């Protein structure tokens, strides 16, 4: 029974247990007032064990009566006589004393109850062990009591966290910011190397130093405002050692602003560290110090703002949010509120108790709950992928654990809740029925209802009919007669080449012919016997001339077909030398376009399935949906990619062989998917040969479960080659 229910029962059947006992708070327990949402509360805290308890002022008034050494019964009678309206009921007293005693905050005049003390201790130890195992992602190992050290450092701390320190701090931030501004180009150039494996060591060192400062800053500010810091140690955050201090005594501060300041202190210190590092980095020559400073700039600013200040993770940001909103136990209560919403609106329990007490809380709590839950899942998923990439077995183990924790455990808890929760009394069959129907619907929708199954692949646009233009005779590019990218007619001259050598050869050939003609006339006059030989020579010379003339004609490149001339290979500047057979662009027929895409072969289901619909969206023209027809999937073993853009070297998905510098030879086998873009596509989009786009294939409908299962399998196959 909780304290709220106990309010109605003025008499308690268990009164005899406490009536004659002289009991009071332990002498090590201190009490002070705190306000939560305008309501006064009394916070009890044991200095030795750091145990906490929050009670109402009425309850505290009763505890004060007990301090005089009277028995519980006497104190209760006194309180009833003094102020009947605010006196606790017997049941409240029993519950209060019980809970305080379970928190080890009481001492009493009974000698033969020490056994329960040991019982409580062993239970507490056990629950701590369980908590340690459950929270394996952040294990805390206390090592050192820094209180004495901080005590000695108090003069320094007062100075740093005082007005002078603040001014210096702001100046440091300004200077650091200025340095970064000035060197901003260099700053981002180096950025890509930050996560490179060779840098990870330095990064971690930077991380460690800034976190150490962070924690000390918490401790110092906590101490500065009169708190105590007794624990400092190592926290294994996702198995990476990290310093931590226990500044929880700050929770006892009366003023909210002080509590917030303690939470903020860590980030404040890190920002100062980042600013100092920026100054070092900007003013040193490349070297280890410089590199370290560079790492610190990022670690102490970006990471701390992203993680420590993120209220969705239970770090400083969360505590600040809790204090700022004055919603204690935000995390826990957000889950309770979600549960309430489920109970009230899904299971239709009329007596469900909301955790939210105000209108703001009623939307704030579920929103926070959902966001933090999604965030947690996302984070876990990414951590899992990351670890699996490095250590496959560990990653799989984590995946199984994640699956277990996010699906099996909640499901088990839910079934247990349905089976045995006292909240469901008299509505149990109703609730079970609703859950059964809902889960049936979910299973039907996910497991049986076929929905469109789609895959997306990258590909390029190719013209169905295209003519590669080749230069027939070599020469220098001298004149452009048509603009590349425009429509050209058949026979239209496109460009002219000039070849002085050829001109010379023609002249030489002509001269030779002239000479031969003269010789021929001479021979007719003189030596008839030589005539036939000269005749043959002349024929050869004529042939050679006509060849040369033909080559000269070839210097004028003419469109062989009508279409769009694209000539990406041509250097716009004149004077480029084009060898014989060199490409002079492509003339593309506008009527007929294909889209060629590639798909890794793990997605083999696309090969077996019938393709219902194919749509294409081109990069840069994503708003236009192009329909494609006659899609064919062809297996290609380690073939040539249709375009460099589809390989990893060109930014695509398919791994390419390292041996091929052109980036066209695929390292893994893939499917080549070809489809014909429909005619109306031409009217809407500007198609260019070689344009990259995404193709969406709609396969035959299948249930979501089947699709997810396949995607997971493919993810594992591709990423981990299982």
């Amino acid at each position, binding site marked *: *029974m909780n304290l709220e229910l106990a*309010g*109605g*029962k*003025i*008499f308690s*059947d*268990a*009164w*005899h*247990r*406490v009536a004659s*006992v002289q*009991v009071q708070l332990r002498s090590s327990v201190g009490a002070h007032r705190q306000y939560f949402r305008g309501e006064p509360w009394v916070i009890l805290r044991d200095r030795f064990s750091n145990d906490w308890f929050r009670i109402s002022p009425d309850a505290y008034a009763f505890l004060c009566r007990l301090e005089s050494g009277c028995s519980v019964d006497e104190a209760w009678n006194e309180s*009833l006589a003094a102020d*009947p*309206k605010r*006196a606790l*009921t017997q049941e409240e007293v*029993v519950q209060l*004393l*019980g*809970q305080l*005693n*379970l928190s080890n905050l009481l001492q*009493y*005049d*009974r*000698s*033969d*109850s020490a*056994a*329960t003390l040991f*019982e*409580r201790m062993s239970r507490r130890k056990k629950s701590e062990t369980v908590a340690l195992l459950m929270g394996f992602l952040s294990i805390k190992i206390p090592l050192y009591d820094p209180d004495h050290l901080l005590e000695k450092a108090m003069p320094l701390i007062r100075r740093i966290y005082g007005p002078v320190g603040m001014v210096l701090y702001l100046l440091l931030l300004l200077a650091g910011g200025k340095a970064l501004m000035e060197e901003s180009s260099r700053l981002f150039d180096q950025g890509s190397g930050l996560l490179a494996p060779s840098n990870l060591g330095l990064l971690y060192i930077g991380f460690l130093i800034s976190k150490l400062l962070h924690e000390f800053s918490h401790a110092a500010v906590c101490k500065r405002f009169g708190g105590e810091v007794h624990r400092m140690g190592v926290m294994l955050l996702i198995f990476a050692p990290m310093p931590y201090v226990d500044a929880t005594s700050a929770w006892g501060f009366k003023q909210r602003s002080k509590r917030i300041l303690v939470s903020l202190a860590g980030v404040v210190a890190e920002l100062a560290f980042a600013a100092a590092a920026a100054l070092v980095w900007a003013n040193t020559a490349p070297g280890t110090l410089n590199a370290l400073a560079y790492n610190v700039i990022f670690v102490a600013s970006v990471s701390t703002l992203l993680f420590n200040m993120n209220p969705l993770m239970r770090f400083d940001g969360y505590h600040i949010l809790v204090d700022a909103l004055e919603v204690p136990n935000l995390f826990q209560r957000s889950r309770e509120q979600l549960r309430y919403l489920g109970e009230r609106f899904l299971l239709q329990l009329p007596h469900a108790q909301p955790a939210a007490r105000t209108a703001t809380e009623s939307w704030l709590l579920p929103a926070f709950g959902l966001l933090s839950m999604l965030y947690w899942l996302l984070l876990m998923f990414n951590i899992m992928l990351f670890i699996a990439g490095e250590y496959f077995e560990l990653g799989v183990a984590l995946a199984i654990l994640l699956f277990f924790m996010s699906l099996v455990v909640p499901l088990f808890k839910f079934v247990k809740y349905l089976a045995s929760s*006292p909240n469901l*009394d*008299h509505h149990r069959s109703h609730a079970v029925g609703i859950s059964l129907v809902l889960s049936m619907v979910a299973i039907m929708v996910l497991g049986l209802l076929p929905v469109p199954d789609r895959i997306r692949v990258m590909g390029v646009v190719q013209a169905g009919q295209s003519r590669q233009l080749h230069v027939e005779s070599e020469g220098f590019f001298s004149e452009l007669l048509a603009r590349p990218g425009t429509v050209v007619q058949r026979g239209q001259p496109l460009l002219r080449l000039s070849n002085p050598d050829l001109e010379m050869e023609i002249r030489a050939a002509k001269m030779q012919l002239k000479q031969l003609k003269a010789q021929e006339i001479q021979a007719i006059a003189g030596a008839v016997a030589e005539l036939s030989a000269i005749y043959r020579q002349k024929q050869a010379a004529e042939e050679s001339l006509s060849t040369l003339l033909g080559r000269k004609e070839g210097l004028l490149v003419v469109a062989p077909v009508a279409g769009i001339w694209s000539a990406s290979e041509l250097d716009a500047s004149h004077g480029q030398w084009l060898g014989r057979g060199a490409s002079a662009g492509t003339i593309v027929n506008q009527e007929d376009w294909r889209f060629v895409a590639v798909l890794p072969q793990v997605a083999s289901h696309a090969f077996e399935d019938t393709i219902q619909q194919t749509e294409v969206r081109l990069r840069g023209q994503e708003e236009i949906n192009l329909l494609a027809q006659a899609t064919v999937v062809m297996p290609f073993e380690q073939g040539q990619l249709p375009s460099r853009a589809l390989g990893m070297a060109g930014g695509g998905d398919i791994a390419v062989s390292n041996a091929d510098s052109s980036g066209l030879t695929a390292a893994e086998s893939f499917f080549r998917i070809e489809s014909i873009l429909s005619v109306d596509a031409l009217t809407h989009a500007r198609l260019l040969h070689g344009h990259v786009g995404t193709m969406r294939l709609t396969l035959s409908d299948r249930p979501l479960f089947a699709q997810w299962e396949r995607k997971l399998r493919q993810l594992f196959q591709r990423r981990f080659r299982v």
Partner: protein
Amino acid sequence: MSPLAHAHFRPISSLATPLDRSTSLRPLQPRVEGLDALAHHLIGHWRRWRSPVEELTRQGRESLEACEALSTFTDDALRVRLGELRDSLRLDPAEGKGMLIQAIGCVGQMALRHLGLKPYPVQFMGALALHRGLLAEMATGEGKTLTVGLAGVLAGFSGRTCHIITANDYLAHRDAEEMTRLYHACGLSVSSVVSTMEQAERAIQYGSDVVYLTAKELLADYLRDEIGSGSREQRTQAAFMAWLNGVAGTEPPGRVLVRGVHTAIVDEADSILIDEAVTPLILSASRENRGLAEAVMIVSQLADTLVEGEDYSSNIPGKNVQLLPSGMERLTHFIRDIPVVWRPAQRREELLRQALFVRHFFKPGHHYVVQDGEVVLLDEFTGRMTPGRSLTAGLHQAIEAREGVTISTPKESLTQMSFQAFFSRFRKLSGCTGTAWEAAAELWRVYGLQVVRIPEHRRRQTIYRTPVITRSGSGKWQAILEEVLKEHRLGRPVLVGVRSVNASEMLAERLRNAGCEVRVLNALTHAEEAEIVSQAGQAGVITIATNMAGRGTDIRLGQGVVERGGLHVVVAEINESLRVDRQLAGRCGRQGDPGTVSIYLSLDDDLAVRLLPESFRSFISLLTGHSVRGLALAAQRAFRWAQSRLEAEAFARRWSVLKADEWMRSALPFEGQGRRTS
């Protein structure tokens, strides 16, 4: 550290003497949790599955042989033999140095000679099961009294204190009386303690070797001793100090339970260990509370004017009442009249809720009766009056205000203990009952009692008639009336079991109007119980009884009744537990006699209204009247289902009592009287 120094620091509690072990309760064992609890549960199943019944059967047969072998002994020789066996049992209470079978055979021979009853093998089996600390399920009418008697003699032989727990005072007295000759013949003293006895008389009775009494009496006396004269250590210390100071004769204040507790044999174990264990036993004293009486009166008057649905809502399945805003508003008008202690909103609303709760869920004649200007509660399971018992403060006064009797001062509890905690701490616990199998898992979990089914001596001849289902309550009573008259005309004795005093009076009235003579056994006529029961088996006698005529009531058939078909039992109102129904049905067909049982179900029954869905009830209601085959059986199934729901709820309640008890013990460990000596 030297061994000597070690011994010096040994805690006092481990110095318990053997005598202490044989007279005190075991310390409470922590309840197993989590996987251990699961394992414990599975062990229970395993043990029940490979039941020791075969070995018991063999030993039962051997016991009978041992018994018959002694038939040639003279009385004196037998007495000598018995003395030897008694000595071996005293030395080795469990197996009697291998002479256990001989001993029980010998006691059986004594029973034959002094009671005129020769135990059947199944009775030997049952007694052996009791001796082994098992819970014997023996069919109703198999002669459990003698079985318990045999086991009681064995326990008495061991020299340890033995308490035999019965379902009520009447049975305690009757059983002790019936068995007296056997105990005396075996050289043991026997007595019974009933609620009307004074303390001095009790102490004398408790001095006997074997004591018959109810669980309530035993626990109450135990608790009185506990709070009465300090803890065990203190008593020991006081005695030691008296001896040290040479002040002879200053004995520590007398205890009621002079011999302590050691062995308990629980007759009707399911009733005592399960049904009655819902509420812990609370020793209480009156304590003046200023203003409670006035506040209760004011609130009670207000409650009479409130309208359900407008001012408050009641949830019948959930057994609770909720105030609506208008009800709370109306309560505030009276705020000036209510004494100041009760003015805070929570408290005054609690009083109003209690007043409304009483109006909805406490029925006079069913839950309580008013006698001599006092509200006396009735026991839900036995239908008996429980003078001295009261509900939680406020609720009891709410009933008194409603009935217009003087408002009593609220009781303040002095100490309390749950029956679960009490019985599970006995050094030796065993029990027998007719109906335990349904509750076997709970008995194992809570008390560590293993249920063993003892076969029947003779096949039961009871015929269960097809249940009768009626649409309305009035139709049901009419049908019962007709059936009773029909059986009455055949000359058979008829026993009608109803659930409330009012129902018993109403039915008796109608039967009297029909010209029959009727005996009514209910809480108000409990004085004539023995006489009514002794007549109930005579030809043509009609007896209407509340649950009082359930457990242990032995209805012996009169002359010529067997030929007419034996006793006819009418279960007029189905109970909240199947076990209670089975107990009532078990009144006929005892020891192989013929008998018939008919069960009447009505859609107006409490059980149906509370638990069966409206749609189902209207469906059944549509079909009744048409001769649909299997309808009654289907309806009976549904009622059984409702019963199992209630049993599960009751278990949850008992479990929460246990849990609350444990919470109290760990959170408020202030039970010990010892002040810290500083």
